């Protein structure tokens, strides 16, 4: 029996405890919030897989913890790895120190547990930084090692297209790597470091405990390779886990004239560009030069040619193609050519009433690819370089057509202040094709064609597939509010687009002499540049967002477009907007309301409704359609992922990526604290037990109160 004073004490204790819980639970902050500071605006490096390997970064299941260390140079990194006194470090580096050398030192060390890149607005940007390979997607290209052509080893032995490429995108790290671009977060980290960790700016050493520490959390679910993680995803029935998803998006295909009936051979001119870029980090892939400039040039050409509809009888049709996922071993073009060779393009034949012409390689007259086009020298003139495939160029009929295209482009270019040139390599021989989607087509069938780009020989882009390939890289000075006074890029792009549009028009029109020059719309180009490079929440994008504006309102913020391909149902908003832009440029307005417009859509007739165009919205009918870039690797039953025949990239699933900053006490202190805590609990138990056993002698027993 509990004695009365003990009971009162116990009751009072319970009351105090309840009050404490109530007060802290209701109005206070959680203990974890007092200990940790969440670092906002972080972008994690994540894992990807191909048929045989895994690449990218991951943290442990509960995140990686280490003492914050900000090295000033490589020697500081060496010091931390070889003689740093602490068990684990998180290195915070400036963009200039984010090099392969530093990452490899960290990878081979035992005490670097993670890396964060602090990219503040005023950070010094490295002169060059490309995480891609020196020969991008070489093994899936036309001149791969197993091809018998004499160009098999051209890259890298004669010319490395992306000579500065450090291949970090294809390196696997078993620690997390984050990019932080938010100034406030960077300031918090640096302030903590200066206050608690740094002795002075000359010393490599850190202060005594407590020290600033970071916890980086970016645990990836997938491992090993695409085969393993997809198998686990499909096997796991009881508890579905998103181990990985195939990298996927849609190619965009549109033609100037509708394609009906049987097409004649060599009756279609293909104008193509790539619509994707990548970077090591989630949520940032500007691809300004790598993708955006070519993509915008193509849109401008489509718009300019769309304006000419009805002005001339067309001898040839023009097909515009935007390839997705070209970063990932030519995913888009590989899938398209695979479908073409199987008679499934633009889609698998269905019933006869709902049909468009089947399209394959024989229908292509020539293939004109708009590659990287953004690096420009300013107002004077625009330099444009043209590449042919030297192997197919040995066939007389193809080389004659190649020459004709070159001549027409040269002739048209003069009117727009453009110089088109065919560069030669160090042996004064023709270059083979640079990395391009055209290579996927040539792997199937010889055809005439050219790749246009801003580089003679190796890339002039110093940030290929880097998060730094942004508007600054292509010197775009048009600002978010839509003023372009000082900008030259849109003029540069307009010149190229006008040249290409005029050349293509004169080659496609019936009467070559009547084909006047086709001028691209400079204002449209500058609007597009603002939308893609600075602000996806621009008027042009909002107008062409269609239903995505309501479905994904979070997408429309002032930020550059993300050009990363992503996964099925990942981020295909941009693809939809691009499709609608293309459909608007090439299609026709039809007089249908919203509901009517969205109904009666067949495979042959593509329609879409844009509510923000015109007074009450406008319905467009066009040839623009999506073509799903499902790699054959995922559609062929029993495909051997080790064969390397088709692109087989997947992206790992993950649940959370976050960074927390906190002060870490001396490890001895931490152990002492937990030991004393355990001791306290045991001691309280023993004392309580002892007091309970002796309550009769310890406490005075009051007489029971009498009944009233």
């Amino acid at each position, binding site marked *: 029996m509990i004695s009365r004073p003990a009971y009162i004490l116990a009751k009072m204790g319970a009351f105090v405890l309840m009050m404490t819980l109530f007060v802290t639970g209701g109005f206070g902050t959680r203990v974890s919030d007092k200990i940790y500071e969440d670092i906002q605006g972080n972008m994690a490096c994540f894992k990807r897989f191909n048929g045989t390997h895994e690449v990218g970064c*991951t943290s442990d*299941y509960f995140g990686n913890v280490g003492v914050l260390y900000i090295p000033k140079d490589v020697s500081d990194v060496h010091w931390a790895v070889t003689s740093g006194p602490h068990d684990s470090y998180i290195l915070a580096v400036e963009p200039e120190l984010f090099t392969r050398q530093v990452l490899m030192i960290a990878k081979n060390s035992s005490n670097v547990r993670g890396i964060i890149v602090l990219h503040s607005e005023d950070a010094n940007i490295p002169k060059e930084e490309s995480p891609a390979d020196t020969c991008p997607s070489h093994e899936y290209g036309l001149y791969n090692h197993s091809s018998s052509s004499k160009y098999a080893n051209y890259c890298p032995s004669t010319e490395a297209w992306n000579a500065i490429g450090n291949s970090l995108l294809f390196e696997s790290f078993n620690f997390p790597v984050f990019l932080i671009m938010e100034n406030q977060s960077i300031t918090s980290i640096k302030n903590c470091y200066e206050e608690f960790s740094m002795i002075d700016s000359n010393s490599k050493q850190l202060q005594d405990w407590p020290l600033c520490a970071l916890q980086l959390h970016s*645990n*990836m*679910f*997938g*491992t*090993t390779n695409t085969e*393993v993680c997809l*198998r*686990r995803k499909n*096997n*796991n029935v*009881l*508890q579905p*886990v998103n*181990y990985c998803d195939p990298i996927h998006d849609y190619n965009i295909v549109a033609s100037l004239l509708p394609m009906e009936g049987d097409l004649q051979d060599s009756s279609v001119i293909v104008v193509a560009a790539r619509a994707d870029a990548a970077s090591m980090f989630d949520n940032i892939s500007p691809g300004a030069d790598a993708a955006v400039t070519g993509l915008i040039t193509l849109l401008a050409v489509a718009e300019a040619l769309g304006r000419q509809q009805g002005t001339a009888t067309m001898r040839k049709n023009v097909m515009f193609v935007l390839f997705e996922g070209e970063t990932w071993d030519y995913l888009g073009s590989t899938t398209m050519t695979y479908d073409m060779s199987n008679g499934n393009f633009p889609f698998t034949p269905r019933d006869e009433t709902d049909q468009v012409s089947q399209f394959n390689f024989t229908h292509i007259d020539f293939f004109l690819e708009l590659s990287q086009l953004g690096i420009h020298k300013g107002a004077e003139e625009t330099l444009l370089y043209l590449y042919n495939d030297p192997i197919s160029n040995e066939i007389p009929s193809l080389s004659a057509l190649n020459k004709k295209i070159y001549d027409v482009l040269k002739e048209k270019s003069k009117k727009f202040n453009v110089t088109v040139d065919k560069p030669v390599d160090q042996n004064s021989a023709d270059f083979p094709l640079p990395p391009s989607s055209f290579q996927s087509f040539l792997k199937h069938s010889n055809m005439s064609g050219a790749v246009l780009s801003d580089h003679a020989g190796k890339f002039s882009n110093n940030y290929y597939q880097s998060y730094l390939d942004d508007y600054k890289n292509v010197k775009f000075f048009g600002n978010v509010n839509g003023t372009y006074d000082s900008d030259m890029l849109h003029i540069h792009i307009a010149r190229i687009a006008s040249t290409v549009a005029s050349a293509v028009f004169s080659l496609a029109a019936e009467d070559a002499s009547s084909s006047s020059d086709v001028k691209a719309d400079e204002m449209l180009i500058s609007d597009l540049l603002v939308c893609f490079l600075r602000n996806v929440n621009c008027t042009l994008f909002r107008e062409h967002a269609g239903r995505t504006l309501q479905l994904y309102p979070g997408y429309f913020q002032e930020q550059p477009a993300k050009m990363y391909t992503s996964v099925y149902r990942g981020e295909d908003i941009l693809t939809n907007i691009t499709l609608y832009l293309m459909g608007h440029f090439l299609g026709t307005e039809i007089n249908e309301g919203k509901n009517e417009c969205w109904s009666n859509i067949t495979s042959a007739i593509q329609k879409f409704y844009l509510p923000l165009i015109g007074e009450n919205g406008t319905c467009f009918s066009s040839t623009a359609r999506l073509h799903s870039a499902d790699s054959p690797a995922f559609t062929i039953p029993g495909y051997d992922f080790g064969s390397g025949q088709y692109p087989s990239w997947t992206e790992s699933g993950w649940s959370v990526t976050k960074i927390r900053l906190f002060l870490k006490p001396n490890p001895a202190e931490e152990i002492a604290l937990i030991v004393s805590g355990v001791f306290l609990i045991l001691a309280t138990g023993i004392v309580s037990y002892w007091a309970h056993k002796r309550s009769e002698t310890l406490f005075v027993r009051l007489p029971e109160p009498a009944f009233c």
Partner: protein
Amino acid sequence: MDISRMSNTKKLSLCRIYFFAGFACLPFMWAVNAIWFLREAFFKPPYPEQKQMKRYVVISGIGSLLWLVAVIAWCVVFSLKRSEWGEVADKLSFIIPKGVP
């Protein structure tokens, strides 16, 4: 159930049921049998059924120990070799850990 109140023949028959049930790949039957009847078979004043009971208890005990060793060995081997065995191991798993090869 309180076996102390049972008759000796009942005890033996119960012990026999557990012993034979254990052969249906039910090692817990043997484990229970061995522990439950241990005192009855070895430490109680002698009675005729004990002789047979002792055999059942000893064999059940050895059987359950063999099972224990086999199961532990399998767990260790499977954990160590899971990633090496690839598809077979994935098919044998109910829950595959995230982010582990």
